[in-house]
């Protein structure tokens, strides 16, 4: 265990020494991460001006709040984060159980918990609480990892994921599952287990595509999945089967993307976007707007920015001081990948429409705050990195 030699910042600010104040202000900030984050946010700003200019003020407010959260978390040393892991996880699971029992139903899903003063969506909390908890657990078992520990970790992961999937909220379930799986992966789960599962997964996807017409027949029920989830997968396989309903999103989004070409139609010139053919253009389908108005060039810029972000995150994880910090940083980094991959796949019509936003670009305060919280964690880990 490394010892903390640094003083924690005092709440008192010496006004006479402005330089010291600014130094304290910027000390927790990783300039590279902040730079990439601001670049992505600038893209988001530009696209929001095109897709939904009336939401600009709210979006800027979201960004300010999120950056504030990022700074606060970045200022926390990893041990403090470590101490939050268990209580946050327990709270999250309890709230999820509460949702399952007393939750409010909105748009056919039970996702919200009404606390009287406010309505909260506990599944959002699990996106951070999950990697925290698993990292905490593996840290605790450091040096004495056994197969049993992986089983326990799987159980810790499966419980909230199951509760979220049952709401049903497939998108969040995938993100939480991804976050947990990556912790387990970084903790050293045997390749002997990963490879067969991966192969099985790929085989399953291929099988679904091949037997599409049989399993998508209206009388077939999919065990463990809701009808609407079956619809999403089936319309993904054949969007033309329901062009006005479930397939509309996929078809119109694919048209928006394809018609963008290499350089796009120009900023604010997207016909799919501006004539309302594109659904959810400011949220989950903002990438379709980028694709339509800036073409493949725009998509590549976004993809490169995410690659830079992820590369930096993995670097931070490699240099982290403790196992907990390492696992947390690696997993949080991979959350960005999961987000981006699922969203980009969804927009381009190779993954089902599961309601995953494009990280830090899509409009929406909660997701933005959660993601910036993740950036803050990375910054905190970087600040307290391993010293040689």
């Amino acid at each position: 265990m490394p010892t903390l030699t640094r003083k924690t910042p005092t709440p008192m600010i010496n006004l006479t020494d402005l330089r010291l104040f600014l130094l304290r202000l910027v000390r927790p900030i990783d300039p590279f991460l902040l730079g990439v984050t601001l670049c992505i946010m600038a893209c988001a700003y530009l696209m929001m001006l095109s897709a939904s200019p009336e939401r600009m003020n709210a979006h800027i407010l979201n960004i300010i709040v999120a950056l504030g959260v990022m700074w606060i978390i970045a200022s926390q040393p990893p041990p403090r984060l470590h101490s939050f892991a268990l209580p946050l996880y327990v709270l999250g699971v309890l709230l999820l159980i509460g949702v399952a029992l007393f939750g409010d139903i909105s748009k056919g899903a039970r996702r919200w918990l009404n606390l009287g003063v406010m309505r909260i969506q506990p599944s959002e909390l699990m996106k951070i609480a999950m990697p925290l908890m698993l990292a905490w657990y593996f840290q605790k078992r450091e040096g004495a990892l056994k197969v049993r520990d992986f089983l326990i970790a799987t159980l810790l992961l499966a419980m909230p994921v199951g509760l979220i999937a049952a709401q049903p909220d497939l998108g969040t379930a995938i993100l939480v599952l991804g976050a947990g799986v990556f912790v387990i992966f970084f903790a050293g789960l045997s390749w002997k287990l990963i490879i067969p599962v991966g192969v099985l997964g790929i085989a399953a996807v291929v099988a679904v595509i091949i037997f599409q017409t049989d399993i998508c027949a209206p009388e077939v029920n999919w065990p463990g999945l809701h009808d609407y989830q079956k619809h999403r997968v089936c319309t993904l396989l054949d969007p033309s089967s329901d062009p006005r309903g479930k397939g509309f999103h996929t078809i119109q989004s694919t048209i928006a993307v394809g018609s963008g070409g290499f350089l796009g139609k120009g900023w604010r010139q997207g016909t799919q976007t501006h004539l309302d053919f594109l659904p959810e253009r400011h949220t989950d389908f903002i990438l379709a707007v980028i694709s339509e108005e800036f073409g493949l060039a725009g998509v590549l810029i976004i993809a490169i920015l995410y690659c830079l972000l992820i590369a930096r995150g993995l670097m931070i994880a490699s240099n982290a001081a403790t196992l907990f910090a390492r696992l947390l940083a690696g997993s949080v980094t991979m959350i960005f990948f999961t987000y981006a991959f699922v969203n980009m796949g969804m927009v381009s019509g190779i993954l089902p429409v599961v309601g995953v936003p494009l990280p830090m670009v899509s409009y929406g305060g909660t997701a933005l705050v959660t993601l910036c919280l993740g950036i803050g964690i990375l910054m905190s880990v970087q600040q307290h990195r391993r010293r040689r």
Partner: protein
Amino acid sequence: MELKAPEQELSRFRARVAAAAVFVLVGFSLIVARFVYLQIVRYDYYATRAEENRISLLPIVPNRGLIMDRNGVVLTRNYSAYTLEITPSKVRNLEDTIDELAEFIDIQTKDRKRFRKLLEESKNFESLPIRTRLTDEEVAKFIARRYKFPGVDIKARLFRQYPFGEFASHAIGYIGRINQKEMARIEDDEDLAANYRGTEHIGKTGLEQSYEKELHGITGFEQVEVDASGRAVRSLARTPPIPGNNLQLTMDAELQRIAEQAFGNRRGALVAIEPGTGGVLALVSTPRFDPNLFVDGITPDNWDVLNTSLDKPMINRALNGAYPPGSTFKPFMALGALVTGKRAANVAIADPGYFVFGNNTFRDDKVGGHGMVDMVKSIVVSCDTYYYTLANEMGIDLISDFMGKLGFGSRTGIDIEGESTGVLPSQAWKKKRFKKPEQQKWYAGETISIGIGQGYNAYTPLQLAHATATLAAGGIMFKPHIVKYVVDAQTGQRRVVEPTPVADLGFKPEHLDVIRRGMVGVMTGGTGARAFAGAKYEAAGKTGTAQVFSLKGGKYKESETHERLRDHALFIAYAPAKDPKIALAVLVENGGFGAAAAAPIARQVLDYYLLGVKPAGAAPEDADADPEDAHTHD
């Protein structure tokens, strides 16, 4: 070990990070490959799809061509009016919606009934009018409440109007909403389907139907950018419609009006043709109907009235009524005798007042007979015996051959659709007409009454007028037509409907002269004399009376016979006799004697056409004249 374990763990972790990095790269590569595929490889396809999404072609319905008489009197008009329309598929509860609309817009029971009828005949996604011709106030009231009525809208539509109502209704016809059968026919033809996008009405009968192609015009298109809900956002390009061509008729509206009025309340038909061109000057069928009733979709009540009426106003009697020609057949029989050489004009027969054939006695109307009768006299006095013997000598097939050349029993080819053929009896016809062998045989006795225009003979008034016009034109037959010019509505350029000579029957002038002398004699000293007393032109004519009901042996007394069983009155004429300008045929259903009922109508028409003299009273004077008193027979 204590120190080494974390180092080992760290390097294993870094291997995992490297694996994760590879995973991320592979993942993003897949995604980028997908975007390259969509945006580069399939770019053209998706660019086209996006354009198809964005651009919609809205049809601009052309103005329908107008119909004018030969002097430019406008018989059909177009006007633009606001209609309140409902798209049934977009309305949750149709009845409730209509009730709510009725709170501030005058919607009557007949409007509801008509709407229900349209609903039955149409598809759900069509926009159907519940009220037409809204007042400005009603339009304003609806606009203020529009948000409450999804699926209900106000549209500006072009309407057809027939300003003279029932006038010439059978000739002009009417337009109505395109029905499913017509829609299927239109959709079969790609060009037609494109041109009828947006068109809701189509010609149903008369000229409106037969000249649909000229009248409709070419639909224009506006290219508009639409949003996902189909609303037009802005106009991109516009191809203006080309209005339909106008029709200028050979028909003389005033002549037509005088002819229609001459019928009064009687049922019948009149066709007047210009010999030497085939131009139709008047085409009357009574009773008439108001074509305006059909334009917005006829109400079920009106439809019932028109369809259940015993008078059958919807039937175009001039083209679709088939009647025995009676004695109007005799001049043609006489001409046939001359042309075929079966009987010379100067050969006279002795008429005892009857003709015996086998066991049957065929009576002449005049008891005791007409004495010695030659051909001219046979026409003037309408001697039945003369034609009994003539028919017997000619035989059915010779009669049939000759009459067939004059157009009897076949369509004249007039430019109105749905003309009937009538019945030109012959041995072949009978064989085809009947199924039982004993009925199929032609009996020589049946030929006798053919000679006086009775028996199986049944021709349309148009055929009769057509044959009379051919006779007047010296045997040159023209295809009858009502349209004289097709006029380009934009340039005013006229396309003449050329008179089409169908045949020159090669009649000899001396033969025609015999017939003319006979027919002139009818008008000066025969059955037409009274109706044409004092006429300032020389007319050639023939009256006719066709039996509706066979009276075996007994004498026919009009006053004692039920109105519907009375004989049909007929009259044919052309004038002036030496240089015919007009030929006509008149039929009055159950009118009794042709001389009394039909000839006076012809007189009014000829007086106006040749002299410009209009009849004094509106109703024909002889409607109640006693035919027994006027003439003993025709």
